[in-house]
């Protein structure tokens, strides 16, 4: 056995991971692993807590997508207590969720991923980052910082906090929106929509045109996809809807989140703390072999863009049509995650505006009557990183007796492992590797925004 290259930490991603590339005696790739290093135990330590408190505990699972955990948790508690949020409460939650997607996508594409494209994958590590981006493209960088900040400030101004929110509550929302707030949010959302159109144009001309051919096969694998769609018309949904599990041949099944255990299961490996979710309902087991994977599907932006029949807002729909005409359905190239991310950025802005223009959004009936009781609830939202599932059971006092969570990133742990193997095997030959080559292996992971 030859040497092991430890790419640690995997950087410009939002979680904690390392890549280990095992080379054989000839210096070719024998095996690769994406090790997930962190385990904290949220599912256990929320046991015994009053369920209505849990949405403001589990938001700490992820500081980048705290709104997603906060709201999936609220939906699960709604379910356990048998409460239906008021229409205004529902819409306020949805608005916050899609707004949180906006800042997240700007962060990922421009702060984390763009340095590889703008500075180049082989640029020295000391400049291949957002600081280097500031020097190479100062105007763009300033604009990006300002737009990301605008999204965060809008959430904070209306809901008190952008990070680790508290305004979603079982039964709805903690406060109504007043007209003044609505106007201000609308103004900000329109500015963000302008920026999102610019972002996609920029990416198409300056990034994808330059890199898609060169990197069309980087970390390329063939899998199925999972994402949320509208219950009626199959359009892209982020806050609420049914789930669609698509095979690589584009055939699919739709199911309700409550039934997730019939369709999905989690494989555990001894070498990483993250479980690997796979398609149990395909009845083919779990296997990450590159040539013949079994049970493997992907989640997150590319998956949602693949599974939806359409997008309900005009700008995003136009972008989707162009995307499909170029790459088909389902599109498989791993780097297309970035493209799909920017289509969703447009959708998130357009959807925020739609909700703000809903005449009843400033209504005062924001929270339904809540009575703690025994029950079970499954709450789902689409987090930026994939379908997020919180499943709680409560006792007669409304305290949690058991909890199970499937978090967005875990759907992509197996696919990321496969993409790492694919990229490393293609790039490292006969013991020849470099910092730039190893960064390209990381780029295959970075596309998934783990």
């Amino acid at each position, binding site marked *: 056995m030859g040497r092991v290259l430890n790419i640690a930490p995997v950087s410009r991603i939002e979680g904690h991971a390392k890549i280990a590339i095992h080379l054989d005696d000839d210096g070719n790739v024998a095996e690769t692993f994406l090790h997930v290093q962190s385990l904290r135990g949220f599912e256990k330590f*929320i046991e015994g807590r009053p369920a209505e408190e849990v949405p403001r505990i589990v938001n700490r699972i992820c*500081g980048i997508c705290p709104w997603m955990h906060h709201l999936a948790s609220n939906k699960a508690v709604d379910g356990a207590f048998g409460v239906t949020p008021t229409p205004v409460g529902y819409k306020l939650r949805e608005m916050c969720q899609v707004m949180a997607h906006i800042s997240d996508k700007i962060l990922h594409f421009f702060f984390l991923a763009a340095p590889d494209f703008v500075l180049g994958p082989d640029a020295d590590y000391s400049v291949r980052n957002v*600081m280097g981006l500031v020097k190479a493209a100062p105007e763009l960088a300033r604009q990006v910082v300002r737009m990301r900040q605008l999204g965060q400030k809008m959430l904070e101004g209306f809901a008190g906090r952008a990070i680790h929110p*508290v305004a979603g509550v079982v039964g709805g929302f903690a406060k109504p929106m007043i007209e003044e707030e609505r106007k201000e949010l609308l103004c900000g959302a329109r500015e963000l929509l302008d920026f999102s159109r610019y972002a996609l144009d920029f990416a198409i001309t300056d990034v994808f045109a330059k890199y898609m051919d060169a990197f069309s096969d980087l970390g390329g694998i063939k899998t199925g996809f999972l994402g949320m769609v509208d219950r009626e018309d199959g359009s892209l949904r982020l806050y609420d809807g049914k789930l669609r599990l698509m095979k690589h041949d584009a055939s699919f099944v739709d199911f309700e989140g409550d039934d997730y255990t019939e369709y999905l299961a989690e494989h555990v490996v001894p070498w990483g703390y993250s479980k690997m979710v796979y398609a149990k309902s395909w009845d083919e087991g779990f296997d990450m072999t590159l040539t013949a994977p079994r049970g493997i599907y992907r989640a997150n932006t590319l998956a949602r863009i693949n599974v939806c029949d359409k997008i309900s807002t005009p700008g995003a729909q136009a972008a989707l049509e162009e995307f499909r005409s170029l790459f088909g359905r389902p599109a498989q190239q791993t780097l297309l995650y970035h493209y799909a991310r920017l289509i969703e950025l447009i959708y998130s802005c357009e959807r925020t505006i739609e909700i703000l223009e809903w005449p009843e959004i400033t209504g005062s009936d924001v929270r339904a009557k809540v009575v703690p009781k025994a029950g079970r609830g499954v709450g789902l939202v689409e987090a930026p990183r994939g379908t997020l599932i919180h499943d709680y059971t409560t006792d007669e006092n409304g305290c949690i007796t058991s909890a*199970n969570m499937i978090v967005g990133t875990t759907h992509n742990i197996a696919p990321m492992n496969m993409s790492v193997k694919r990229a490393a095997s293609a790039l490292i030959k006969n013991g020849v590797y470099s910092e730039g080559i190893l960064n390209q292996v990381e780029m295959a992971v970075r596309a998934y925004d783990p």
Partner: protein
Amino acid sequence: MGVTAAMEWLGSCSGCEIAFLNIGEDLVPLITETLDLVHAPLLMDHKYFGQCGEGVTLEIPDAVIGIVTGGVNNREHLTVLRQMRKKCRLLIALGTCATHGGIPALMNGQDQQASWQAIFKTVSTDPGAEIPEVEVPPPLDRVYACDEKVKIDMQLPGCPPNPELIAELLVAIVEGRSPVLPGKSVCDTCPARREGRSVVGKVKRFIENVEFDPGEPVSGMRCLLEQGFMCMGPVTAGGCNGGEGVPACISARVPCRGCFGPVRKNGNQLLDMMNGLASNGIDFKSVVDRRSILRFSGAHGRLRPLKKRVAKE
């Protein structure tokens, strides 16, 4: 060139890092002129084992300022924290996990081994799954705040910390002056109207919204503790509002849960809150899940597993 700085995250959620990025327009000069980042996994690609991953010992470059977020949950966190201490002249614990344990230290109230076994045996995991043990860092016996393991020079709590305060702390260090940080409690910075004692003798669960007029500022709303809700403002360090303005959760019309940790140095939020409730005429036995009052400050040995009751015949 700016002052060299290294950033690391231990058992964290990245919320502190996002708060750092939320500094806003001042962020650009901060990370390109004031500071010279030499290591920061979220933002740049410096690697522990050399840029080609051939090294065998974990190395972080020398830096004047070190910023650590997250608590210490496993062996790798400990190695990284010790390396940061060794390489950084001034080490800052940023965020409540790093200063007081934060939410992950709720694990300190559980039986760790049994919990971890249960996490890998759920309704959705494959049968026969075991706790992973290969190439993953083994857990410590409990979750520690950073100052339980190494000397920490400065602490800035918050879940997350306020971006303005993060900027103030860093700029003050670079300018060689003492940072201006808030020392008051959430309660002392809260404009909600206080009338005296609580209207009810029991704590209400937060299953109904507080009473307020949405058109009015928070100063027109009655104190949430007086409305009978559990609000930890009296025992919690302020700063979530950056020192001015309404505390963050209160501005969402939601009671405080103590995310900046105790306001008193070495204070105990649980004991202090019990006293606070009693002095407001509220029966503390009416609080469901009292241990949860330590949900942000369970390190330093404060939160421990409950002793199992011996079954009686």
